[in-house]
């Protein structure tokens, strides 16, 4: 297994005005499951392809276990990759697909056979060894693609959106299989996706990318609960964080957040971080689950408005509200018994200790409410994986 380090990795295509990937620095520990997450065109797949050796690196350094890999051909990096399209060789059987890479490496026939059978046993593909890819279902093809990577026993596994071609239910089960596989193999894995659920559930850490740059790196819950900027705040979460226009004011040396006609004091927020922004526009961020219907007590603040949409989802109800005097809509998670109707007046309560204040100018975080923890446990800590 391996440590992978990206140091100011940059990709510039010929004849392109913008860089595809800019100054990406990232350390991936041995046995870690790192997820590169971002919207289409953010550079996550290009970054993965540079790690794989399928794209030349324009600037920066890629090292694996301390060895510079920039000029090492893909075949010599000891990396295996699972492609979005699976990239199974259509003229070969499942067995031949799995053995293809091993033959090239000069393994003995017995070794190839042992590895292929071990992988197919693990993935439940024993009955399909003689079939060609066209005779397999989407899920089976995906497992063959996975098997092709596993038989190589590489130092690093790369996944380029491997679940995106599966239907919803198969995606969930395959996701769980991948999590188990990671725990079993204890391998370094780098996984590219634009699906935040996959990122949140699978990753030891998530690297969120936007416009070719790293927006934030951290454990899934950390990037969700403590986003570094408005992009991360709005990209993670469904529905995403509410981002409302606000202004910082100072009264008797204490900062206040002017939100419409409301003047809010944020409990636990570092006053020294907010005061330099007095008189400036900011973005007030709050997650839908931190807004409740008529929640009383604590540091909550009430805001009235008109309901513009109600979306009952069974377990909960999403309520969209046009708050008075704020000028943009707000989404909150109502209970499953929420009885609100479109056009009705609604009283919403903010949990002010869970608010985020972003700079309107730079979009970066300025301060957070006191209820937002500073560190988060991960679902699959590296230490546990190694053990």
């Amino acid at each position: 297994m391996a440590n992978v380090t990206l140091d100011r990795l940059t990709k510039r295509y010929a004849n392109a005005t913008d860089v595809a990937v800019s100054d990406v620095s990232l350390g991936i520990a041995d046995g870690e499951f790192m997820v590169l997450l971002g919207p289409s065109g953010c550079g996550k797949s290009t970054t993965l392809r540079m790690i794989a050796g399928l794209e030349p690196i324009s600037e920066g350094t890629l090292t694996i276990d301390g060895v510079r890999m920039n000029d090492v051909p893909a075949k010599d990096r000891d990396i295996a990759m699972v492609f979005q399209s699976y990239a199974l060789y259509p003229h070969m059987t499942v067995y031949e697909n799995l053995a293809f890479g091993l033959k090239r490496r000069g393994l003995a026939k017995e070794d190839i056979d042992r590895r292929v059978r071990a992988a197919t046993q693990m993935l439940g593909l024993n009955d399909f060894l003689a079939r060609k890819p066209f005779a397999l279902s989407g899920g089976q093809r995906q497992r063959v693609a996975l098997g092709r990577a596993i038989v190589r026993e590489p130092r690093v596994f790369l996944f380029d959106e491997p679940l995106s071609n599966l239907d919803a239910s198969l995606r969930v089960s395959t996701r769980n299989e991948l999590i188990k596989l990671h725990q079993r193999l204890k391998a370094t894995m780098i996984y590219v996706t634009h699906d935040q659920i996959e990122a949140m559930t699978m990753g030891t850490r998530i690297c969120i990318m936007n416009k070719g740059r790293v927006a934030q790196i951290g454990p899934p819950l950390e990037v969700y609960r403590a986003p570094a900027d408005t992009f991360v705040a709005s990209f993670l979460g469904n529905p995403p964080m509410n981002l409302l226009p606000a202004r910082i004011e100072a009264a008797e040396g204490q900062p206040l957040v002017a939100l419409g006609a409301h003047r809010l004091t944020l409990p636990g927020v570092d006053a020294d971080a907010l005061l330099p922004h007095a008189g400036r526009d900011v973005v007030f961020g709050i997650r839908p689950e931190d807004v409740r219907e008529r929640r009383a007590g604590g540091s909550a603040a009430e805001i009235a408005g008109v309901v513009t949409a109600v979306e009952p989802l069974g377990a909960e109800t999403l309520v969209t509200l046009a708050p008075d005097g704020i000028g943009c809509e707000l989404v909150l998670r109502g209970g499953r018994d929420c009885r609100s109707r479109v056009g009705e007046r609604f009283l919403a309560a903010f949990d002010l200790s869970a608010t985020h204040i972003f700079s309107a100018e730079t979009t970066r975080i300025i301060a957070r409410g006191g209820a937002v923890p500073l560190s988060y446990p991960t679902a699959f800590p590296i230490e546990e994986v190694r053990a």
Partner: protein
Amino acid sequence: MIWKQALPRALILLALSLYTAYAAGPFLWIASMSLRSTQDIFDNPYALPLAPQFGKYVTAWTTSNYGVYFTNSTVVVVAAVLILTVVGAMAAHALARYKFPGNRFVFFLIFSTIIFPPQITIIALFQVLVDYGLFNSLTGLTLSYVALQLPLTIFLLESFFARLPQDLFDAARMDGYSDWEIFWRITLPVGLPAVATTIILNFIHLWNEFLYAVVLITDENKRTLPLGIMKFMGDQLQDIGMIATGMMIAVIPVIVLYAFFSEKLIQGMTAGAVK
């Protein structure tokens, strides 16, 4: 209700039957004439060969030098198709897969030569072959055929290869294969429908090619089949019966090849039509 379902099917069957008769009719007529004498044909052109003269095939093969023509055609066409397939596929693979400056320029330069009819280039080609000592040789004719069909071969294969997913090639690279190995182990087998299509098209076209053969070959023993058939067409008399026999001998390899590759040919022609 049954009529509503059966009528469209019957119309389709009728249309297909008419087309089959239209397409296969001349072939069957020639096949019938190949077993009849010329006098018999003049007496009744459409009669069936009630007393088939299989000996005409032996006569054509032995006394009319068809064995030599057939061998010459086979050598020239098989060699040309082999070179065309390998060189054309390599060029198409390079043009479809590799980004390099002038890629499209090279592609269109090669393809643009298709617009010149062979009559325009034949005199220049004649001179080139004379200069290089290749005139009146099967090697010269083979190379001329390669030059004639290469642009179309590259065009057909490039358009097919370009549609193959890049991930396949990336996966092979990750598996440790070189560009050379990827061409032989991935591009050619995966592109087999298109390769088969070009093999058949090139084979049929070159097997029937007459203009280059008549200009570039003068020796009797270097003639190809289309020139051999001409032997039976004199100014005063046309030996229709022997022409039909000669044509049947000429067409049999094409039919065999088509039967062998027809499934791949259809796959190649309909590639991309359905997901």
